[in-house]
């Protein structure tokens, strides 16, 4: 039996680490009855495509990140709301791997799309790479900030004080180099592999967001599994919950070290609680505007998650 697992990143990136370990554990626990084939970024099309492929049963598992998943399951966009997650990753781990709001509530929205929500995990803090020092919202004045084409991201960065610009992924490096844009945001391992640090001067940790990804499975495929297999998958998930937090922390730390080595004069700024509070305050309306836009039970989901993460306003 072959299970196909498609993710959105390149070999060696965090999603690939997860998929590789998933493959190892599943093949080990089924004594090789199941073999897992991994497809990396671009092999089966775009992020949206692999989610559709999973819903259609062409692949059994795939990664989907909220930015893209939001076009299928709009409520998932709450994970784009700034400062929703805790500043303490132990809390994040507990909530993302076992939250009733996610696995009992949100997962129903997945079911209606033919998807079974398997797990969620963060890939690391979203770090701003900029050409000028940014410590308070006013510093963002006139900064052209590249974000993905998503209304909530555009509004968030507007509220932070920046000028959000939508630019295709492939143009970000040269865009930074030539000042078409002044800043972009991504997890540090991504900043390193895409070499964005070469063309910016500051790495700013503002704690506004973790890059949170979702692993989904085809709903019919999952429902058709024997109890034994379901049990096995739950075990694998539990083991991977621990594994991926360590793995992503290590991957991001190593990436930051390599950046510092390659560019010793890069300035790493970790905003303190007070500074973060200013950005949090500036963006406090984002949750409400998302609720307005998406509707449904977004308000309930957002409130419940804030409670679980301990970030209620």
């Amino acid at each position, binding site marked *: 039996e072959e299970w196909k697992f498609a993710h959105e990143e390149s070999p060696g990136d965090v999603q690939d680490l997860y998929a590789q370990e998933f493959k190892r554990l599943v093949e080990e626990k089924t004594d090789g009855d199941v073999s897992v084939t991994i497809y990396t970024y*671009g092999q089966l099309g775009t992020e949206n495509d692999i989610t559709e492929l999973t819903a259609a049963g062409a692949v059994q598992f795939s990664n989907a990140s909220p930015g893209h998943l939001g076009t299928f399951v709009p409520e998932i966009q709450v994970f784009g709301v700034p400062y929703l997650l805790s500043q303490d990753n132990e809390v994040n781990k507990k909530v993302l791997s076992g939250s009733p709001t996610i696995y009992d509530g949100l997962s129903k929205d997945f079911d209606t799309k033919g998807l079974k929500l398997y797990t969620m995990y963060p890939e690391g803090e979203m770090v701003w790479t900029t050409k000028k020092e940014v410590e308070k919202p006013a510093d963002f004045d006139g900064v052209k900030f590249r974000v993905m084409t998503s209304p909530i991201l555009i509004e968030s960065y507007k509220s932070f004080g920046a000028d959000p610009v939508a630019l295709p992924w492939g143009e970000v490096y040269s865009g930074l180099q030539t000042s078409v844009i002044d800043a972009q945001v991504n997890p540090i391992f991504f900043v390193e592999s895409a070499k964005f640090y070469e063309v910016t001067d500051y790495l700013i940790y503002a704690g506004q967001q973790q890059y949170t990804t979702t692993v989904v499975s085809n709903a019919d495929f999952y429902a058709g599994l024997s109890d034994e297999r379901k049990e096995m998958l739950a075990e694998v998930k539990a083991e991977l919950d621990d594994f991926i937090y360590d793995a992503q922390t290590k991957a991001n730390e190593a990436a930051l070290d390599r950046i510092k080595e390659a560019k010793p004069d890069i300035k790493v700024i970790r905003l303190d609680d007070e500074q973060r509070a200013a950005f949090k305050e500036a963006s406090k309306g984002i949750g409400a505007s998302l609720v307005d836009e998406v509707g449904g039970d977004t308000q309930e989901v957002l409130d419940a998650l804030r409670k679980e993460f301990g970030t209620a306003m």
Partner: protein
Amino acid sequence: MDLGTTILLVMLVLLVLGFPMMVPLATASVVAFMFYMPIPERILIQQMVTGISPVALIAVPMFIFAADIVTKGHTANRLIDLAMTFVGHVRGGLAVTTALGCTMFGAVSGSTQATVVAMGGPLRPKMLKAGYEDKFAMALIINASDIAFLIPPSIGMIVFGVVGKVSIGELFLAGIGPGILILLMFSAYCVYYAKKNNIPTIPRMNWTERGKAVVNAGPAIMFPVLIVGGIYLGWVSPTEVAAVAVIYAIILEVLIFKSVKWSELLDIARSTGLITAVVFILVGAGTTFSFVISFAQIPQHVIGALGLEGANPYVILAAISIAFFVGCMFVDPIVVILVLTPIFMPLVNAAGLDPVLVGTLVTLQVAIGSATPPFGCDIFTAIAIFRRPYAEVIRGTPPFIIMLLLAAVILMFVPQIALFLPELAFH
């Protein structure tokens, strides 16, 4: 029969039988979906739509539109006049003019075929009249238009950049060095040919005449300045520079030269739309085909079978060059890039090769292959335009193809020819 063999056979048979090129690609995919892959067939359509959706691909219709507007005007002739006043007096000057004209026109046009049309039309009769053999003239035009594919803009580079996730801006800048290298090689051969065959020269132009030609062609020369400068200075992305080129072409031909009327613009846009569709349906069908190949993990098998995993970088470069060259001898370049790039990119990344260098090399190979018998697309364009039989069109091509392959080898060993400009601009 296994999936790989089946789809390859289906493709080749339908291709040789003369079906429109989207048919072999789409049929091979349909066969794969029906008999080999447990996936709903609608995914085939999803991949087709995905293939044509990347934002950067918008540059293709925009560059075609700009080139169409300019071709309707008098740009081609002005560029030819310019080249002629400077090099016409040397032995082989008209042939050198042809090579130089193709290079300059390449800065307006993103495709080799457009260049064959725009430059071949006016220049071939002139060369014949001056005493060049027809086989030499046709071969020169077909192969010099390859330079247009390397000089930005280039449709091949846009597609490679999109599929291989490589910066199109860097690829554009990287094409300029090799383009000029080939121009020099061709020019040297033209001079040698003219000496050997005793082709008469025309009198040297004086600087007044040259000045006049520069002024006449000036706005056309602004195209490369606009495109390269726009990217280099970072005002615009390569996608956007294409749209800016359209506006510039309109200002030039409609407002300044008045060689195109406002009312004709919509007509030109229609023709651009038509050509775009013909190219993009191949992009869509090619993406579907490439999905089938990826899904069935054929690249892994092929690379494993060829023993390329972890091979010497030069071996990998050589394998890539041969694959793209041979592919383009049979199928449209866009399709070859779409299908082969995903197969080789993991290998390129694993070997730590510079993807910009690989992209430049691929673009060069694609251009050479498409001018190479048996079925290179440029040959058929030339047959259609020059109305000469196949055998005659291809007879003079071997020396040029040898020079182009030599250029590819030089590029492999001296990558700085391609990389110095992007490095200067971006690093």
